[in-house]
């Protein structure tokens, strides 16, 4: 898989259609990555659990494509999509998920803690809303050091329950920090519908702090990208933070082991959202607009699938960290 920098060059020299084709590729890569993760879990090759991003790909890709490689992101327990969209390589990600030395964090972090300075990834986070402070702090550094970087803080709508989010939104707006709070509203906090946990109006919660708060169809990568670009550039110009709700859907369970979901949501609901699959939607559009033929897309998918299989193979074959690693990296 290409790095962010590679991809950028391609886009900047290309036409609009190339950008969307690129995003199609990115979303497909995330989808196929996640399918491999599920496979690894089912085959009992992966220690622990993982939270799949299937169905939400348009959010990570639409937003991250509005960023430069130097811009920062923070991510969540459901973080594979963000990491890949910001440029992480699948082989090292799989290695991390398997706890291998070759992983992004030498296997010490695992699925919920992938971090990578080379792609501006400050880290996934297993505490709900746990990275909201970190993202805001990265924006604080950017402003203080005059680097023109922007920080994007991804979080699920469940994080709206955590007070620290409001604390840092207040700080960000007071100090006009270049941070975008991206709320991925996929309807569920684990097994509980967000309407049971979220009073009032989501956008209003951010708007109350004086920042622009927008919402967008999170299944439409073009819409996400357009609005993200606008908010990112605004932040880069020094005009302060913004909040963006992306309405999306978690097509799988809360984690790979969450198979029987009917006690908290209907098959019908899942099917309806399945029909709004963001990848299929972009694909249909690309074909309709004649930017690509069905075959091109199919070939792209096959190629990515092979990449993913190779990446998994690499990770499975990779070595665990040696026992001496256990007490390394506690202190810098």
């Amino acid at each position, binding site marked *: 898989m290409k790095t962010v920098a590679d991809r950028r060059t391609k886009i900047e020299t290309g036409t609009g259609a190339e950008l969307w084709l690129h995003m199609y590729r990115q979303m497909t890569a995330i989808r196929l990555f996640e399918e491999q993760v599920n496979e690894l879990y089912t085959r009992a090759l992966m*220690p*622990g659990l993982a939270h799949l991003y299937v169905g939400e790909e348009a959010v990570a890709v639409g937003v991250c494509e509005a960023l430069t490689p130097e811009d920062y992101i923070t991510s969540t327990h459901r973080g594979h999509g963000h990491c890949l969209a910001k440029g992480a390589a699948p082989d090292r990600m799989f290695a991390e998920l398997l*706890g291998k030395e070759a992983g992004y964090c*030498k296997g*010490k972090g695992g699925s919920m803690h992938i971090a990578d300075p080379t792609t501006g990834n400050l880290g996934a986070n297993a505490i709900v809303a746990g990275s909201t402070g970190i993202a805001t702090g990265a924006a604080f550094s950017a402003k203080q050091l005059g680097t023109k970087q922007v920080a994007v803080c991804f979080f699920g709508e469940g994080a709206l*329950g955590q*007070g620290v989010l409001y604390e840092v939104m207040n700080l960000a707006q007071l100090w006009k920090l270049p941070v975008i709070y991206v709320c991925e509203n996929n309807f569920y906090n*684990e097994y509980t519908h967000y309407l049971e946990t979220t009073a009032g109006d989501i956008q209003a919660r951010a708007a109350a702090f004086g920042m622009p708060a927008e919402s967008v169809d999170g299944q439409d990568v073009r819409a996400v990208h357009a609005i993200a670009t606008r908010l990112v550039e605004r932040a880069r110009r020094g005009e302060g933070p913004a909040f963006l709700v992306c309405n999306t859907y978690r097509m799988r369970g809360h984690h790979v082991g969450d198979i029987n979901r009917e006690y908290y949501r209907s098959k019908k609901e899942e099917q309806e959202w399945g029909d709004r699959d963001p990848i299929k939607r972009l694909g249909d559009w690309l074909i309709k607009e004649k930017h690509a033929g069905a075959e091109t897309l199919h070939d792209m998918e096959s190629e990515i699938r092979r990449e993913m299989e190779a990446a998994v193979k690499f990770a499975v074959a990779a070595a665990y960290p040696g026992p001496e*690693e256990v007490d390394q990296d*506690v202190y810098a």
Partner: protein
Amino acid sequence: MPEIATKETTREITFAEAVREALAEEMRRDSRVVILGEDVAEAGTPFKVLSGLVEEFGTQRVIDTPISEAGFTGLAVGAAMTGLRPVVDIMFGDFITLTMDQMVNQAAKVHYMSGGKWKVPMVMRTTLGAARRSAAQHSQSLHAWFSHVPGLKVVLPSTPYDAKGLLKTAIRDENPVIFFEDKMMFKMKGPVPLEEYTIPLGVADVKRVGTDITFVATSSMVQVALAAAVMLEEIGISAEVIDPRTTWPLDEKTLVESAKKTSRAIVIDEGYGRYGVTAELAAVIAEGAFFNLDAPVKRLGAMHVPIPFSPPLEDATVPNEQMVFDAARKLCGRS
């Protein structure tokens, strides 16, 4: 030790069932008991510990909350002061970080600061323990923090029997009690009496009688200590296993008497080894049994590192029976 031995007077249930039964019995007994937490109702928690309770008691008493650990813990403090007996569920013990102000500056101090006028009869149930490949933010055993704070009581059950009896007592207690369950023990089976019973807080349990060395172990480390004791038996070392069951109140006497008797002690706890529970227990024994000890008290806790995800690394961080066995053998001058 549980006075429950015969098949006719006991049933086998899992640790999770023991917790659930304790809650159900207390909720039947006292309508003021309510459960608050994330995914506690229909989902019955991610560990399925509470499955079935919402069906019996309804969503007015088994209440799904937003992901607001500070908020609903604070709410529980106020509810406890004003006539309810809330049991809050903090899914992973790592998230108590978010509740420290409510528990320590509020719940623990309300009674004292009000000159004894207000009371806070609440329970916080949460988890501890690593080894689930959940990495650094979902694997901590932070019970030492609460044990450090006057006004709180801290319970660490190690068997289904203890879990049920202690939780019932905790719910009836007039003070804030934190109840730590090891995530790895939920499926462990053990006998409980057919009859209702409770276990007082502050009474250690001798889980195994021995003569050569004392193990003081908490939570799942009790099982580790018992397993090591079996291994030691084979080389002729007789280990006594004491489970304090509550770190506060602490049954110092039982610990110290055992160490006096055996003249050697190892304390084993899954919290970080430094400035944690092992330090207090070791200090208590070293002071109380000073003139009887033949060797320094040995401490075994989690390695002083964030818990790593990678399985071989994670496994190295938590005391296991081999480590206890090795330490005991050495302490008894056998290595």
